């Protein structure tokens, strides 16, 4: 997997980011009893997975992958997930909130907030508790959103997975304080200092496999409230007279399909995606329907235990 052909030598900037991320991953394994990689199947967690394979070579991945499935993941994401986990021989844990499932929580009738809270945040907490994971590695970046800009690399969570902005520990010189008390956990973000460009640059240079949805293709699209929604199955009811139209689109972020807006694009290769990003004038999260719900929604979600 690591010996695949590369198109370019990494820039010193990417080399530095790569080394930092590898060091953070090793620190996690050296300091915690039972770490896990939160694998959301997006480009960021694909990069973290790639870095982890490098960090622990020639050994195997020393932690399992955890995917929180909401029942509304793009089918292509699930196929990609299973294929990738099999390729690298990783242990894959898939968890769906059984209570939410029983109550039939879904984004169409309950709205994005309730759906993400029950099937996302609650499900994540359940899975972490059930397996006793004391450190959860994620692909979040500081450049994504303002509440993230202040996030620590090792982000401390009090019992109940509570994130307290004032309780976060200063991080000096990369001398991370990884000590936790009973019931406490840590979230770990190896890509903290990466930007969206860095991620794509690195994916391009390292030829990292990502979900095909990131590349443009003709897809069945509904226009809903200004967003282009790809109708991935029959559960989204059509309005009277409405028909999905086939459009050339791609996705900039991954999420639940009814909540993730596509944009019109012809970018079919990584290079074309990079070129499109260079010219883009809207931010990455623009396509996420959940973030625009309410002001400071990310901070609120984080406090509740969202990744």
């Amino acid at each position, binding site marked *: 997997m690591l010996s695949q052909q590369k198109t370019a030598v990494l820039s*010193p900037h990417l080399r530095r980011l790569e080394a930092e991320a590898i*060091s953070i991953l090793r620190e996690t394994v*050296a300091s915690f009893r039972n770490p896990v990689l939160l694998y959301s199947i997006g480009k960021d967690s694909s990069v973290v997975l790639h870095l982890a394979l490098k*960090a622990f070579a020639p050994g195997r991945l020393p932690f399992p992958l955890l995917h929180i499935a909401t029942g509304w993941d793009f089918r292509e994401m699930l196929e990609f997930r299973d294929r990738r986990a099999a390729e690298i021989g990783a242990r894959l844990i898939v968890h769906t909130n059984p209570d939410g499932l029983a109550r039939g929580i879904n984004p169409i009738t309950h709205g994005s907030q309730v759906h993400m809270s029950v099937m996302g945040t609650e499900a994540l907490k359940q899975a972490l508790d059930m397996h006793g994971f004391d450190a959860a590695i994620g692909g979040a970046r500081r450049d994504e959103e*303002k509440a993230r800009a202040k996030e620590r690399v090792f982000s401390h969570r009090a019992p109940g997975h509570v994130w307290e*902005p004032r309780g976060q*520990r*200063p991080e*000096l010189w990369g001398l991370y304080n990884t000590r936790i*008390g009973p019931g406490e956990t840590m979230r770990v973000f190896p890509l903290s200092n990466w930007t969206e460009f860095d991620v794509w640059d690195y994916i391009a240079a390292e030829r990292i496999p990502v979900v095909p949805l990131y590349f443009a293709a003709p897809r069945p699209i509904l226009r809903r409230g200004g967003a282009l929604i790809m109708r991935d199955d029959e559960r989204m009811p059509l309005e009277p007279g409405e028909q999905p139209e086939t459009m050339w689109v791609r996705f900039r972020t991954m999420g639940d399909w009814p909540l993730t807006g596509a944009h019109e694009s012809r970018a079919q290769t990584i290079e074309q995606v990079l070129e499109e990003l260079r010219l883009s004038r809207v931010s990455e999260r623009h396509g996420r329907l959940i973030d625009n719900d309410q002001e400071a929604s990310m901070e609120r979600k984080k406090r509740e235990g969202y990744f």
Partner: protein
Amino acid sequence: MDGTSMSRGLLRVLTCGSVDDGKSTLIGRLLYDSQLIMEDTLAAIARDSRKHGTLGEEVDLALLVDGLEAERQQGITIDVAYRFFTTPRRSFIVADCPGHEQYTRNMATGASNSELAIILVDARKGLLTQTRRHSYICSLLGIRHVVLAVNKIDLVHFDQQVFDRIVGEYATFAAGLGFHSMVPIPTSGRFGDNVTRRSGNTPWYRGPTLLEHLESVEVEEDLARIPFRFPVQWVNRPNQDFRGFSGTVASGAVALGESVVVAGSGVTSHVARILGPDGDQERATAGEAVTLCLADEVDVARGDVLAPVSDRPAVADQFAAHLLWMDEEPMLPGRQYLMRIGNAWTTASVTAIKHRVDVSTLDHQSATRLALNEIGLCNLATATRVAMDPYAQNRLTGAFILVDRFTNRTAGCGMIAFPLRRATNIHHEHFLVDKAARAAALGQKPMVLWFTGLSGSGKSTVAKLVEQALHQSGRHTYSLDGDNLRHGLNRDLGFTDQDRVENIRRVGEVAKLMVDAGLIVLCSFISPFRAERQMVREMLAEGEFIEIFVDTPIEVCMRRDVKGLYAKAMRGEIANFTGVSSPYEPPEAAELVLDGAGPSAEALAQQVLALVDRRQSAG
């Protein structure tokens, strides 16, 4: 991010200044004028400006960087935020640091990871205590390049005299701070003067704009040129055939075949393999995350440091360091903290505060403790010997953090000034007659019965009864209490928190010697702090320390008030009286809890004796 953008690599910048100097606005301006703000973000900011902004209909650029809800509502920055931007000439990571005094620790965090600092001064206010404090912290943390942004220059009518006066004052103050470059720039974050474009309002200013300077400044990165240091982070041992030491090269370089020494043990070997992110490589230099395989089977663990045989780090258990305190709970000499240096964790305590630094004047003051945000030059002692370099020589192997053992908060950070050589000259003598031999001669297991509780709880009364009974049954005992120690060994100590810590430390050392002599030692001390009781517990061997909490409600103690002390304390005649004007932290896991308000002292003594009997006859 095309190929040419990296011509000057990455610059890590710190911004600091006081509340309302306009830091967030200046950074917002930098991002905005560099056209790095996405349209949807700008639309959101415009909407928020009407809600939280302070500028009416004008877009409040500070909202681009003030992220947390609490900050937006209060209009201040309360945490370090990291911003990323790239111009055609350079990429930047900007650590936006808070101005409030209570968040100085966050500023130190930003400084520890930065190469250049932008120090903001409000042109109307000139230099403030915070300006001096932040400059000193930048200097202490090894930042060698600063920009003095005299901001809000529009509000002083772009007056050159104001600018010159502030720059002159600052130059005088900063002369002793060791900056290699100090570039003053008159700026207006709100209107953009001299941020990314030269201002027509300051024709008298001929220097670069802020962005021009940031794009062109040379910050010497000399980590690769100093001696090789490799703190081992993780031992990679996937199978019998592979044993590698993973970590990031802190400084210098190493090549295949070169000799290295394990700094702590002095064992040498040479590098047989270097595995980088893309497989085998011949060399590894500062900043690279690699895995090294050595030619010999040597004992290496996480926390060890590999170094050149000819140029080793110091290995010591005592050293002098500048300590910056970051916790609400003050640093008390003698109290033990967890310490992380490189990848090694150990315990450490401050043995002496040589002086505290007044950061406004840089004067030295005497001090008995360090409170939040205070800085002092201290001597420290560690439980184990650790590899270190002076911070001035190596920022990565000369830095450490201290962690509170109970809350796990990062309580302080330190920069090593120099190792204390005397540490290496004191060797512990090994007598032929040891503790076991002495204990056997006395026919008992030595131990410490540690009675803790409020004044008047009945500690000493119970201890006396216990000692009498033990003595009658042929045990060899000794009692330590305030009466026989406060008047002699500890007569130089008062009742402040730091003196209480030292009092207990000495008691612990004396008790330890007596245990070594084979005795059963009864100690009756209020000993109000968990940390110090834990310290004594750890001085002794497993099972030798028996903590007995005489749990008597303060109302009962006050009613008894045998010595009339509570009455005096309530009248305010005794300062720092435990339970009245000084805290008591009850034990969380004492070996025995006695209900001091219930049964008679004789009944309580029987409970202690039963426990002692069990311990004496066990194993």
